[in-house]
């Protein structure tokens, strides 16, 4: 039976007020095997109308498999899926949509050169004969956006929208097919602070519309903010389903990982040495950064944070030669590497790598790693010109192999071999591989751009551990992050950036998550009332 929003009301009235008694979706003893080995084991799951049901667990716990089964991407090996207490067989993604199940996955599925409304109606047949009814479409689009309280013009081009807005258009698109169930898979992955808040407001609206929402996230804070119930998965088994307001973050983590994560943030003592990086009056050619002054000393972690699009990352990228500069002076150690007035410009990735700087980008798939290549090839790529990897023209494969043995031990790759292709290892391992580029060469200054984005909690702790090791060895870290708890707990000094300018510098004991939040909230206020 097809459930839509039209008969949601009917379902709701049949049962008692408050929570609807009959679940929209029920999984009974669902199992899934691939080649005979289980990926999901006898799982039970229920979703009610107007409920946000969160899924929590580390990578490979079975969340993706579960979503595949619900969205019709694959079929269960055993067990039943019930929609409105009727057993259904979801044959395909298309069939799932017909049944009232709509999904928004991590990948962007919009067509950037088309407008919002064109994207909203892409794939739905709303034409008479050959021609689109443009006027009617505009009206429908307006209605959908209004209903979601989403302030956007239907004729805007999607490519001009922010990440958050694109994500919200995607949700609007899924919402437009009038689903009863929506699956949201890590919708906040590429978003930060304020953008996330906007998205949450939209999810609240969906909830009020009576839609049952399955929400997958790595971030416990989101789960507590949004969800009514949470199911924790581990190794393909359902560990527990809890009411969110009767559980705690520590409990959730213990359910998901089987152990507590002690000292999540390591204490890293600063031992400031001589000045490594000195940026003076930096202006970028694209004007995203104006008159920035920033210093990094040896042996310290300097945090740079701000709202999305603040320009924090742009400063770092400029120092590595990835953003053209307009004016200013950059000094590394005692060398002026950029000085507009003197005509010095020696900032390129190669030159900065050779000086001992390593920039690790936020988007590891797009910029950081060669996904088709092995762990070994990725780690040595930026260091192949060093004597341990090559003599002149020739690669020393034996030298490379020796180095890798050491690296895989330090990375705790366990049974994973360094010959594994990155496509086939978990996101967390990929992130660690990127950091390991710093193992094989002498790095004095790491620039880490959102180093823990989209990784599970276990890996996150490991990455912080690595940062501690780097610092203990005398290196310093310029940490660009929109995760305030990360910045607050790790940094010795913090710069807050807003609209391409440094607003505040906080150091030492003044750094705390609340103080950072306070500063950033004030920026938010300024944003709302422009001069």
């Amino acid at each position: 039976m097809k459930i839509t929003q039209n008969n949601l009301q009917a379902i709701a009235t049949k049962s008692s007020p408050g929570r609807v008694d009959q679940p929209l979706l029920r999984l009974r003893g669902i199992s899934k095997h691939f080649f005979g080995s289980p990926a999901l084991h006898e799982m039970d799951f229920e979703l009610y109308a107007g409920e946000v049901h969160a899924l929590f667990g580390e990578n490979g716990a079975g969340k993706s498999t579960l979503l595949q089964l619900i969205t019709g991407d694959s079929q269960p090996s055993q067990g039943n899926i019930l929609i409105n207490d009727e057993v259904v067989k979801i044959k395909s993604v298309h069939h799932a949509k017909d049944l009232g199940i709509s999904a928004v996955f991590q990948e962007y599925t919009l067509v950037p050169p088309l407008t919002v409304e064109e994207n909203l109606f892409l794939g739905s047949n709303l034409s008479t004969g050959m021609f689109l009814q443009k006027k009617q479409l505009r009206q429908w689009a307006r209605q959908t956006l209004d209903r979601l309280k989403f302030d956007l013009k239907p004729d805007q081009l999607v490519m001009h929208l922010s990440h958050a807005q694109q994500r919200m258009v995607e949700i609007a698109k899924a919402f437009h097919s009038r689903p009863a169930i929506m699956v949201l898979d890590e919708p906040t992955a590429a978003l930060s602070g304020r953008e996330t808040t906007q998205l949450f407001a939209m999810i609240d609206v969906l909830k009020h519309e009576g839609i049952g929402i399955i929400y997958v996230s790595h971030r416990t804070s989101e789960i507590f903010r949004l969800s009514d119930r949470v199911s924790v998965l581990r190794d393909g088994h359902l560990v527990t389903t809890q009411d969110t307001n009767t559980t705690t973050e520590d409990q959730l983590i213990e359910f998901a990982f089987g152990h507590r994560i002690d000292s999540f943030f390591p204490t890293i003592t600063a031992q400031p040495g001589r000045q490594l990086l000195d940026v003076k009056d930096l202006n970028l050619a694209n004007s995203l950064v104006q008159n920035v002054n920033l210093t990094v000393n040896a042996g310290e972690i300097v945090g740079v944070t701000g709202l999305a699009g603040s320009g924090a990352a742009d400063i770092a990228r400029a120092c590595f030669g990835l953003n053209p500069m307009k004016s200013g002076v950059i000094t590394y150690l005692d060398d002026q590497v950029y000085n507009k007035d003197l005509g010095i410009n020696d900032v390129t990735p190669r030159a900065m790598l050779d000086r001992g700087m390593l920039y690790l980008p936020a988007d590891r798939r797009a910029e950081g790693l060669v996904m088709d290549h092995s762990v070994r090839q990725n780690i040595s790529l930026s260091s192949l010109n060093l004597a341990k990897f090559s003599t002149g023209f020739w690669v020393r494969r034996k030298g490379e192999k020796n180095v890798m043995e050491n690296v895989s031990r330090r990375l705790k790759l366990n049974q994973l071999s360094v010959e594994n292709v990155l496509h086939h290892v978990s996101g967390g391992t990929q992130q660690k591989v990127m950091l390991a580029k710093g193992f094989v060469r002498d790095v004095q200054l790491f620039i880490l751009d959102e180093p823990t984005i989209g990784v599970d909690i276990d890996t996150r702790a490991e990455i912080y551990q690595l940062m501690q090791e780097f610092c203990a060895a005398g290196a310093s870290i310029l940490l660009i992050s929109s995760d305030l708890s990360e910045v607050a707990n790790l940094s010795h000094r913090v710069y807050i950036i807003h609209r391409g300018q440094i607003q505040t510098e906080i150091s030492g004991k003044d750094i705390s998550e609340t103080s950072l939040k306070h500063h950033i909230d004030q920026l938010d206020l300024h944003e709302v009332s422009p001069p």
Partner: protein
Amino acid sequence: MTLHSLPPTQPNQPKTTTETRYMSKILNFLVVLYIKGGVLPWFLAIAVLGFGLSSEYFLSQTNLMGIAMHATYLILVAMAQMLVMLTAGLDLSVGVMIAMTSVTSSLTMGAMWSGHGSGWEAVLIGSVVGLCSCAGIGLVNGIGVAWFRVPPFIMTFGMSSVVLGLALSLTSGIPIYGMPPSFANIFGYGTWFDIPVPILVTLPCIGLMYIFLNWTRIGRYIYAIGGNLRAAQLSGINTKFCLIIAYTVASLFTGIAALLITARLETGESNLGASYPLLSIAACAIGGVSLQGGVGKLSNVVLGAAFLILIQNGMNLMRINSYYQMVVIGALLITAIIAEYLRQRLLKTYVTVAKSK
């Protein structure tokens, strides 16, 4: 986690007879073989079996040597194509490179040879001129792609027209004779210990390419550039330089093939090589070189090229019309791409299973 065998079937399955278990084991083995080796071993096995059964002559030593001999040209060009495809490019100008090299080398040889003696100077200088003109085309391709960011497809397609036009204007479309006979006698038809000279030229070329791709820094960089251009740039690699090198080295290998073909035909012709763009791309695709760049093994490309020649030979023996042969080659290319896509999907499922264990 290596691909040794698929995970065992779970114990609580319904009881199976030994027969069905045996069957599923074989099936598993075949799936693993497919995931590991790709489509090529299957193509080869089917072709050898099919042609071997239909014609006794097919598997004779003479015929196999003939196949190897004819495959050398395509192997050289396919290696060149592979180098470009690894950088996420495509070289549609390999055909006209062959034509141009043939024309310039034979014109030079004809002009230099007095008509007496062995004429080895004429052969040497003619070959060098041919290779230089070919390398020039590759260099222009590389500069266009690396510096001016012309999409490789357009750059090499455009150059095809430019170069073909030049080659035709040099010859007015007429075959060029007058090369020293020693050129054809040695490089076209010569043998050494019963092994044809083209094979003797090609073998070290394969070795050189292997070393270039696997043991030099530039080789590694070329793989990285095709795998992820941005990541390569952020790793401090001079991507423009590497791209130009890739296109130029590729054109040199094509040039060697062109000289061997010219020697075999004993004439310089401006209409040579038209089938090579498709054949070389097909050889790479069958050999598992990714169209997205960054992935591909030299040994498989060499086998892929040999396979295509083997198919052509087999079809000739079966007296299949050359028009139908074109149909078969094109269909094989498309099949190879589809098979590769399926392999990737199987691999993904397989790895998901291995990871969840």
